[in-house]
């Protein structure tokens, strides 16, 4: 057992616990905060895989922007305390069923790849070189040009959508 593996196991447990905490929490604010912790652990996973840019972007965009929006929405609805009973009665069995399917799928993949004995990713100092980020940037803007440009259309749709939803038309009361 090397240090990286121990760290990975500890973080994996934290990630699962925060996810469960988010599901079990009766206060929407606490649920959102558990999700922030979960995002932070995922960011550390990215770091361990040698992807510092993605790790930092994860913190900036997910923890720093999207979760702030979640907090705002919770406060907007005044829904800090969740109701006791079930709102959607069919939701729980459906969720359990889908979770079982996902687990089975993950297990199948895991057993299929079991014979590959490659160790954990153990990035060295080369990940921290400025050239590494530059190489990532070059492939983003050359090889993945189309997805990048399409992203802007996606962002545009989101922007128009939120304005249509929240702004009243002139004359409409």
């Amino acid at each position: 057992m090397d240090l990286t593996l121990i760290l990975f196991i500890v973080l994996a447990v934290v990630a699962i616990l925060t996810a469960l905490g988010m599901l079990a929490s009766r206060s929407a604010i606490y649920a959102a905060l558990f999700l922030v912790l979960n995002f932070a652990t995922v960011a550390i996973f990215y770091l361990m895989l040698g992807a510092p840019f993605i790790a930092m972007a994860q913190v900036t965009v997910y923890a720093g922007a999207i979760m702030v929006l979640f907090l705002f929405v919770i406060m907007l609805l005044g829904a800090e305390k969740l109701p006791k009973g079930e709102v959607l009665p069919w939701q729980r069995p459906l969720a359990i069923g889908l979770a079982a399917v996902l687990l089975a799928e993950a297990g199948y993949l895991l057993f299929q790849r079991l014979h590959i004995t490659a160790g954990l990713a153990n990035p060295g100092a080369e990940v921290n070189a400025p050239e590494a980020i530059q190489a990532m940037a070059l492939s983003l803007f050359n090889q993945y040009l189309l997805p990048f440009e399409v992203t802007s259309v996606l962002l545009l749709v989101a922007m128009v959508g939120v304005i249509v939803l929240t702004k009243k038309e002139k004359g409409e009361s």
Partner: protein
Amino acid sequence: MLLEYTAIAAFIIVTAAIGFIAIGLGMLFGPKKSTDKKAMPYESGMNPIGPGTRRMPVHFYLIAVLFILFDIEVVFLLPYAIAFRQLGLFGLIEMLIFIVILLVGYFYAWKKGALEWE
């Protein structure tokens, strides 16, 4: 492991420890004579009216969504900023297209009065 990030983790632990020690000091030495009057929410000396937390205006939600979109744009501009010398004119036009598509939404928001704060 990435040594530099471990150093940052050590730093985070030190700062959090300082924060908790400071709070602990305050709890240890401060007097504790709480009364009902003291525990009331502060409203400039008046008796508080209504609940403390209430539903907030929808405009904050709008601002938060717009912020996410432009934040993602900034995150995309960061790798561009270190690679644009190699990408040359091609990269500049590429980035301009990206921004112009976003600016269409921005001007729509402006014209719809979404940036106005009533």
